[in-house]
């Protein structure tokens, strides 16, 4: 994983696998020194305490195709490498929240990467779910959801490269404006 955005996409996939119908991705820049906090919230089936304890062990996985599970451990490693923290909370039947913090000026912090592309890809490839994106910094905030896009643009389905291209530019403009890069 070379970008934080790819980690976000990877963790969001876990939410889909957990049967969530709503997944919220949020990025928050705050504090002095500056910290970038990313949160991925899903309302899937959640995990029991035993399972939760093991999730950041790379040799634990719920899948059956192979014996390793690297998504969460890699995110944890990258957050800690950048002077940050990693936290995961989950309740059975309610959902899971993954949080990772990065020191924003840390030399080992990965670039944010193509966040808009990842979010749009998740939203268009999984139209049955409600996707939310929240961006916040001292300069302001920006929020968008897939149901909002559908209702404002009067669409049943978010598709087509013309629309997704415009949506990506819109999100990128807000990322730039809030100084989240």
């Amino acid at each position, binding site marked *: *994983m070379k970008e934080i955005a*790819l980690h976000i*996409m*990877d963790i969001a*996939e876990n939410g889909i*696998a957990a049967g969530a119908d709503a997944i919220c991705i949020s990025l928050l820049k705050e504090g002095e020194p500056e910290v970038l906090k990313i949160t991925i919230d899903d309302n899937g089936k959640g995990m029991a305490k035993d399972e939760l304890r093991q999730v950041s062990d790379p040799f634990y996985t719920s*899948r059956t*195709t*192979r014996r390793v*599970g*690297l*998504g969460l451990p*890699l995110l944890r490693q990258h957050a800690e490498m950048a002077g940050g923290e990693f936290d995961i909370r989950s309740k059975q039947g309610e959902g899971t929240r993954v949080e990772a913090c990065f020191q924003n000026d840390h030399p080992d912090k990965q670039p944010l990467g*193509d966040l808009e*592309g*990842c979010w749009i*890809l998740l939203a*268009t*490839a*999984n139209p049955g779910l409600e996707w939310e994106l929240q961006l916040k910094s001292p300069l302001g905030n920006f929020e*968008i959801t897939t149901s*909002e*896009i559908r209702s*404002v*643009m009067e*669409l*049943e*389905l978010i*598709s*087509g*490269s*013309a*629309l997704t291209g*415009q*949506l990506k*530019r*819109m999100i990128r*403009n*807000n990322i730039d*404006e809030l100084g989240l890069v």
Partner: protein
Amino acid sequence: MSKIKSLADLKKIRDEKGSGLQIREKGEEAENLVQVKVAMATCGIASGAKETMEFMSDALEKRGVDAIVTQVGCMGYCYAEPTIEITLPGSDPLVFGGVNRDKADEIIEKYIKSGELVDGIIPVNYETIDSKE
């Protein structure tokens, strides 16, 4: 042109310029379309599945192929990521490995458009002994 910053801006542009947006009608039968599934677990994402998927959906749309591009979890071929599964209408699914942009382009031009097989197929048999006569 001013920067698009909100959905209101986006809607305004669409209302002024006409949509230019192609919208898929929901009722289309999946069986009649080319179905592309991109494996997007940690292994796939780390190997570039996102670029593969973006390229697939854009290229198929631009080249006028009616297709559904979706994402799936790990198919178990972590050594061959990014992997994609393609189902042409009326055919059995085929899995391709090592699908970067160039490979994806080749797959669209040769396999999807004319059914010609290309290098990189991962042999998978979906039939079980039980399902055979």
